[in-house]
């Protein structure tokens, strides 16, 4: 009898209790890495969309790779139906002592959080955003030259004043 137990309860009703639709757009992906100078911080804007159907969705974001250089300010996002403007700011910070040429990997998993339907087995959708971060040398900008130029100018000015004063004393 026991061998013939009907696992009726299994029912395996793999229900998607809601229209599970959403999208994630990213400016970086595998094959299109982020190049960033060491000692700098950049906010990568990941875009969440829900343009299909009329159901709002709740999306959970988990940073699963690159925790040493990346961070998320929030983990759960509400994406209203027919919107495409939810931005997930992913902060990338590269220490000044990082090695130029190092490649770090960042990965964020996004998954829908579905309603907990009684007797149902929910099925959701998910997308991963993953990309390499290439660390580059910091480029010297104009502001980096201001102090040295100012010092040279001051020294030159002092020399000129010294020469003029010396001649007048003679």
């Amino acid at each position, binding site marked *: 009898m026991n*061998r013939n137990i009907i*696992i009726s309860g299994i029912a*395996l009703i793999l229900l998607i209790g809601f229209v599970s639709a959403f999208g994630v*757009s*990213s400016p970086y992906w595998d094959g299109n890495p982020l190049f960033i100078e060491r000692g700098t911080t950049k906010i990568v804007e990941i875009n969440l*969309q829900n343009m299909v159907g009329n159901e709002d969705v709740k999306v959970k974001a988990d940073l699963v790779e690159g925790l040493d250089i990346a961070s998320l300010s929030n983990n759960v996002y509400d994406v209203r139906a027919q919107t495409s403007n939810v931005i997930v700011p992913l902060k990338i910070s590269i220490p000044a002592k990082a090695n130029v040429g190092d490649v770090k990997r960042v990965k964020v998993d996004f998954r829908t959080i579905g309603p907990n339907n*009684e007797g*149902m087995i929910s099925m959701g959708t998910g997308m991963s955003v993953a990309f390499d971060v290439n660390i580059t040398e910091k480029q010297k900008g104009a502001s980096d030259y201001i102090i040295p130029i100012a010092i040279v100018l001051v020294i030159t000015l002092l020399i000129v004043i010294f020469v003029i004063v010396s001649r007048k004393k003679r």
Partner: protein
Amino acid sequence: MRLNKFQYFFGFLVLASMLILPFASAGIVEFLQKTITGRATSQFTNVSLNVVGANPAQIIYVSPISAVNPTELGYTNVSFEVRVYDPDGASDINISSVYANFSKSGETTRLSQMCAKDSDLNDYTSNFSCLIQMWYWDGSGVWNVNVQASDIGNKSIVYNTTTNFTYNLLKAMVISPNALTWPSLYTGSTDEKSNNDPTIINNTGNYNGTINLIAIDLLGETTPSSMIPANNFTTSNNDGTVCSSGTVLVNGTSTPISGTVANRGNLSAGGGAGQENLYYCIPLVPNVPSQTYSTQLGGSWTVLYP
């Protein structure tokens, strides 16, 4: 018969008149007309032709285009500015000749409508606005911007291909149906397939890689200590082989489903474009107590674009 001097002279006059009169008569007639009417019948005139628009136009500027996000199951309008210069003057620019397109190897070229003239920046340069629609299945990566224009005088078509932009990656999907069911199952039975699969995965973005599935052990709703482990399930995009060679699922792990691909494409085109199907099987129903097993306590399964 001998001719005298007078006869010679007269004959000479007759011959001379025959030779000269045809040339002189016009002058005489003209003289008479001019005298009578007061107008000359013809006169020399200086003719000067001013040829304009000989120089070809030049497309001197195409505005930079920031990275563009695709729109799920829709299109994104991409607009940009074009400046056309003509040394023969802005009026020589053919304002209905300015077009643009976006191109990328292996992708359908996206064309603009005619770029609309905004204004004349100066006597020689006109500003145009161009708009091109990029669709959700268009490939991610760098797209080239090609602009063409011509002028009225020279008529030769000139091009500018100096600009490009990045079309971002959009991972997006809609799955259906909203329920998967199995018939009643008995312990020990084999090759039990879902009776309402497949899960149809509609790709509403431009991702084109494999599809993963994160399965969760099914816990008993009455006795949670009893469960059906996720590795009792197989899945495949082939209904005929899902039980025999489908991918075995792993609890809590993003598992690539062998042979699947997101198939980015125009869903409206039909024929499977933009779609992938997942079938499910329990090759051997485990020996577990009779009760309801579900993901209610353990968490839902997730179809994933990794």
